[in-house]
């Protein structure tokens, strides 16, 4: 049962309903070295048995779900093989947990600079397989920007060492990275590392609306500044995550250049309500789950009307790091751009709070399920021109299915990622429901995703910024790559001619592949 699933929320619907997953592997293997991986691949190839590589199971797209066959759990291959401060590289095995890899580097005063919120429950091999992004990707890039070399056991059983700088060859490394186990199994990797930052400057900013915050960050990045952290919470996400409330509780924050101007009425109400805010928020959450999430369209409409009145504005967290003098200079320069875009400096408090709780979100999902909801996330990206239309299009499309909020993070000079959070009521497994309730939940889930991804494609975004594809987004790979899928199929035919590796994923099985 342990290996029946990853963290794909569709699978969690069945778990929450106490229904035994129907899609299970027949065998689980734990290799410890490349030669053993190679032997298993040969064996599976000889017997035409599907083989699914598995890291720590933190994926949310069903990329590691097996329908029979063998699951290869790589967590015994977890050694740091070499740290070379002179070359600024680290070489490791794929099954190492992110937090352990960072810990090993920290002992040398180094960092990979890759901090996904799942860092405690995801492996470095999984990062490479899915093109993961960390919370500091704006400064350090995504994992594909860090990797220099991978060793891969292809579906043929051949061991390949792929680099991005072989003279006279294309960058074959970037063809392996992101292939989610469909072309080969990563057994070793080397990445560039950096010196751990000497200083970190975190700061919160308030903006009247999300468009202004996006404009501010676009200016910052296009002026050549590289914050480590950029997170713009939309109005609802700002309210729900309590970001603004905490900032207000601290105001006037130490170091804040300007106090946020509150409407006099709201300020009085906050004073009255502040002692009860925590309790009220818990009550609100329970009410949301039990009643309101059953009518998401109405809830979204109400949120659209009420949130701007109750707590106008949205929150931006921005952080710089590195050599102290450079980080401080970058922060000063960024402040000019953010002020010019209409931002109000809330001081370091909100940023430091975010930093202290940066990984908490990965452990919130079970609470939502226990409360009778299901939650899921969609991370997309687009250039600045398409970004806000994409944001509106997805919210509009999803509003009939779930409560939707978003934050913008992983920003680049030419665009940004949007991270949507959906919440809807689930019924499977709740008192008084039968097996049909789970089926209804799954239908609702599938409809939500179908609608959301159609909206993404129509608005000109990419269907995934850093979660990957797996089974969830596989039907949309053709919309993403078009005729380019012929290239992916050619890669598959050469590297995995028998199609044993992670079948049913990535849209390689045809455009009509079901969710």
């Amino acid at each position, binding site marked *: 049962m342990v290996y029946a699933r990853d963290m794909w929320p569709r699978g969690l619907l069945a778990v929450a309903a106490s229904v035994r997953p129907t899609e299970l592997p027949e065998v689980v293997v734990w290799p410890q070295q490349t030669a053993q991986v190679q032997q298993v691949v040969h064996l599976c190839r000889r017997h035409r048995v599907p083989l699914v590589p598995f890291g720590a199971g933190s994926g949310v797209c069903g990329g590691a779900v097996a329908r029979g066959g063998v699951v290869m759990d790589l967590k015994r291959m977890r050694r740091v093989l070499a740290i*070379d401060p*002179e070359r*600024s*590289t680290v070489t490791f095995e794929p099954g190492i947990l992110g937090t352990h890899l960072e810990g090993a580097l920290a002992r040398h005063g180094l960092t990979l600079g890759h901090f996904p919120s799942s860092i405690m429950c995801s492996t470095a091999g999984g990062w490479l397989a*899915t*093109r993961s*992004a960390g919370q500091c990707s704006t400064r*350090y890039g*995504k994992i594909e920007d860090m990797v220099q070399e991978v060793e891969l056991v292809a579906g043929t059983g051949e061991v*390949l*060492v*792929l*680099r991005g700088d*072989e*003279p*006279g*060859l*294309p*960058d074959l490394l*970037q*063809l*392996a990275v*992101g*292939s989610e186990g469909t072309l080969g199994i990563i057994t070793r990797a080397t990445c*560039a590392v*950096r010196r751990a930052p000497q200083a970190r400057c975190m700061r919160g900013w308030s903006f009247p609306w999300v468009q202004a915050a996006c404009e501010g960050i676009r200016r910052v990045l296009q*002026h*050549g*500044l*590289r914050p480590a952290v950029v997170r713009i919470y939309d109005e609802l996400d700002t309210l729900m995550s309590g970001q603004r409330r905490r900032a207000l509780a601290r105001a006037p924050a130490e170091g804040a250049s300007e106090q946020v101007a509150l409407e006099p009425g709201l300020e009085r109400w906050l004073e009255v309500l502040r002692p009860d805010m925590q309790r009220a928020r818990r009550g609100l959450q329970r009410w949301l789950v039990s009643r309101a999430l059953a009518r998401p369209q109405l809830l979204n409409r109400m949120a659209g009307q009420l949130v701007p009145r109750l707590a106008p504005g949205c929150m931006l967290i921005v952080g710089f790091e590195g050599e102290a*003098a*450079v980080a401080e*200079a*970058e922060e000063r*320069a960024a402040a000019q751009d953010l002020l010019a875009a209409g931002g109000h400096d809330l001081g370091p408090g909100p940023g430091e709070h975010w930093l202290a709780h940066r990984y908490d979100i990965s452990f919130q999902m079970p609470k939502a399920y226990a409360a009778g909801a299901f939650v899921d996330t969609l991370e997309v*990206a*687009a*250039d600045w*021109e398409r970004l806000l239309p994409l944001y509106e299009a997805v919210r509009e499309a999803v509003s009939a299915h779930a409560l939707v909020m978003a934050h913008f993070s*992983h920003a*680049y*000079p*030419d*665009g*940004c990622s949007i991270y949507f959070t959906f919440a809807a009521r689930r019924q499977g497994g709740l008192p008084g429901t039968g097996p049909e309730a789970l089926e209804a939940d799954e239908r609702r889930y599938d409809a939500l995703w179908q609608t959301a991804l159609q909206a993404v494609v129509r608005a000109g*975004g*990419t*269907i995934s910024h*850093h*979660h*990957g594809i797996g089974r969830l987004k596989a039907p949309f790979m053709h919309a*993403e*790559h*078009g005729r380019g899928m*012929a*290239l*992916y199929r050619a*890669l598959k035919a*050469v*590297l995995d001619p028998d199609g044993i590796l992670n079948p049913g994923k990535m849209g390689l099985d045809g455009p009509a592949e079901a969710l």
Partner: protein
Amino acid sequence: MTPEPPSGRALLLDRLRGQLGPAFVDAESDPPYIRCRPGDGAQVAAALAAARVGGVRASCTFAREALLHLDLSRLDRVAVDGKTLLCTAGAGISLGRLQSAVRAHGLSLGPLPPKSLPRTLGAALAAPRPSEASPSLGRLRDRPRQVQAVLPGQGEMDLPVRPAPRRAAGPDLKQLLIGSRGKVGILVSATLPLVRPGPERRLVGWMLPTVEAAARALWQVLHGLGGIGPMDLQLVAPGLLRAAASGTELPAGGAALLLRAEGPAALVAAQQALARARCADGTELPEALCAAWLDPPEGAPAALWPTGERALSAPSPGELAAVVRACRGPWVVCGVHVHGAALCAAAEDLEDLPEATPPAPATRLYEQLCAALDPQRLLC
């Protein structure tokens, strides 16, 4: 008397003239070849389709084995988006012309070695050079957000369908064409990110007493900035710098570290201060001298640049110093970024360096991919 049937070559010529227009197709008999100048992706696809029907090989790199040569010089359109800082440019435009075109919008492709400016965008992507990289922007070959290409078996395609700053939707399929030297497909255009030169720009440099000290300083400047680096960072042989500055006297030393910092004034000042601290053993060079190398009048130093170059993969400062020391002629270390650098030197100096050859399985994999995508071996 029955007229002789037209040869396959004549048929191909007719067909191409019909599709591209007679003005854009010509033929030579000694050696025999046909040259066509397609004006867009559809015409590139049409030319490849004609070659396939005619059973002749085609090339966009003027390969000797090809009968049909595709001259991409008409693919020279440029579209610039000042909001997203993206430009889409045809494969046939030279990097120099492209740089001028985007500069007209107050933007830049980022630093490029002067010897790369005559290269076309298509050539720079199909056969990338390690010197075409920058500390803050990375390698030019990694920057395209989207390429348009024509593959012999699949026709025109956009890879991916829509540009995005980053994605996690499978392998980066455009990388199969970039670096393929035109053997997988023909690049028609690319969408590239641009930079807006900062309000402040400084060109600074130090003469370090030894090559070892310079290599160490370069490493510390690159990594002291969190691996992000300034816009450009180079080590230059003193003799080259002297030649570029028309014989201006230089302080004595083993190597010059030159740096281009761009951006908001506070950041530029901080980068300069950090570099100064790392080059404390050196003598600061006047800005005019640094500009003579980093920002010369058009075309001036291109002739000075050593023509050969070799990629240095994540070299330690000691390794970097050792390869530089081995050069008897002029040299430049440029294209510095977090994964490596390029050594530009005379061909005879590079001959002494052990050539990094791709491992046989990687080469075999690439050949298998070429065969799978172009089973008729139309492209060469």
